[in-house]
């Protein structure tokens, strides 16, 4: 009886091993790309008064604005993260460093997508102290001072999460770390376009995230080498 049970277990283990190793990896050549737009009226971004921080104020000829809904020509939405939220196998973290800058009392880029476990390097390029305070809930929340001229902060996140980032000293500074469990993501530029390349054929859930308007998802099935166009449209409210 015991022997039979063990045999069964062994066969199961073998089977799992064979199915994993047996099929050759399909070519990861499919692409999904498209454009993120808005319908309706987005809010006007407010100019930021940096008078309390002259060293930053003088870096901007015209006042910079808030960045929670950034738009481009032809109703394009900027800073939207489009990523594979289901159907993808997360690979190892890339060796490439995700770089986040504090420059002119702004976060550059405003939204920084990265992979779980990827090295994140945070720089202070300003002549003033910042405290970098990512308000993580799933990952540990920390808060570090980074005075002018100090070394970059090296860190990483172990769990996927959308993390708002703020500087308590300069309350207008807002940004996001978008920690993803996939290597396939893209962030829209001013033209609202995105492109996820190098996907193996398969069925995927594609998610678009905008900090104020939340997420939208679409199912997409890709054949080997196929290029598919998928567009997202967020309903914009003026407040």
């Amino acid at each position, binding site marked *: 009886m*015991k022997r039979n049970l063990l045999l069964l277990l062994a066969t199961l283990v073998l089977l799992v091993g064979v199915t994993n190793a047996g099929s050759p990896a399909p070519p990861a050549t499919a692409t999904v790309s498209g454009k993120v737009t808005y319908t309706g009226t987005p809010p006007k971004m407010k100019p930021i008064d940096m008078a309390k921080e002259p060293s930053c104020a003088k870096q901007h000829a015209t006042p910079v604005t808030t960045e929670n809904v950034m738009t481009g020509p032809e109703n394009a939405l900027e800073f939207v993260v489009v990523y594979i939220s289901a159907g993808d196998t997360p690979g190892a973290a890339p060796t490439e460093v995700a770089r986040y800058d504090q420059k002119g009392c702004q976060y550059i880029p405003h939204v920084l997508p990265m992979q779980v476990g990827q090295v994140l390097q945070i720089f202070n390029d300003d002549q003033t*102290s910042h405290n970098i305070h990512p308000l993580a809930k799933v990952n*540990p929340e*920390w*808060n570090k001072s980074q005075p002018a001229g100090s070394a970059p902060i090296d860190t990483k996140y172990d769990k996927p999460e959308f993390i708002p980032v703020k500087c*308590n*000293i300069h*309350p207008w500074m807002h940004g996001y770390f978008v920690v993803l469990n996939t290597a396939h993501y893209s962030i829209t530029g001013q033209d609202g376009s995105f492109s996820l390349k190098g996907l193996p054929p398969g069925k995927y859930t594609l998610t678009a995230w905008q900090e104020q308007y939340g997420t939208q998802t679409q199912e997409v099935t890709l054949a080997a080498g196929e290029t598919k166009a998928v567009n997202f449209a967020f309903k914009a409210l003026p407040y």
Partner: protein
Amino acid sequence: MTQKQMLVRLALIAAIPFLAGLPSAFAQESHVGNLTGHANEGKQLYRRYCIGCHGPEGDSNGENAPWIDPKPRDFTAATFKCRSTPTGTLPTDQDLYNAVQRGFVTTNMPSWNPLTPQQRVDLVAYVKTFSPRWKTEKPGTPINIPAETPVTIESILHGRELFQKMECWKCHGPSGHGDGPSAATLTDSKDNPIRPYNFSTGSRFKCGETNQDLYRIFMTGLDGTPMPSFADVIKPNDAWDLVHFLRTLQTLRTQEATLWKNYQAAHGAEIKPIGPDAGGGQ
């Protein structure tokens, strides 16, 4: 495979769930000195003493919470102000025990000294059951605090330079009254307004009253609040200089205050004011 080998393997397989369960069993306990706290006992005490503010779920939604400012701690987030461990890490059992014993000055959290030490460790064990982080993570390694350097006027003056350079005054104000240019905009991690510490209000800080406590506060930061950690940017001995300067901001007759007063009397004209016009950070 012999019968014996097979039995050994089966025993190992059977043991896996128990081995995997170990960390969670530890999470139900707390250890302070030679006391061991148990969550089951802590639960009874919690329901009697803590539930009113911290709530039945430990999520700071007790029935008194709406009328309390600053808000009670949300134990489900496992983010704690007073730690001996680096920012972003879990505190030690001793840290939590100290917080229960000490209470939090300028808040509604009283000192729970009337409880016995055993009761306090039991409470710590129960508080740790509210967040899954205690099952998957270990507390951080407490920061190293070197022996205090002598209190000299040079140390105080260097500490004062750091207070300017690290821009402590942006929140705490040039004279430590908690009235810096960024003070009015500060919020905690739940978006509730929060005040920076006013050094002129007394002898106690949120996380203790000794020089070591003060050292620990700014080196580890108060997680969940705007107060960041300076561990990466202030060297250990320089940190003692800052401690010595911070003591002069208090309205106490300390050794530091006396030294500073005498220096001010003799060199008043040479002292540059702290703030945006003093250079450093501009």
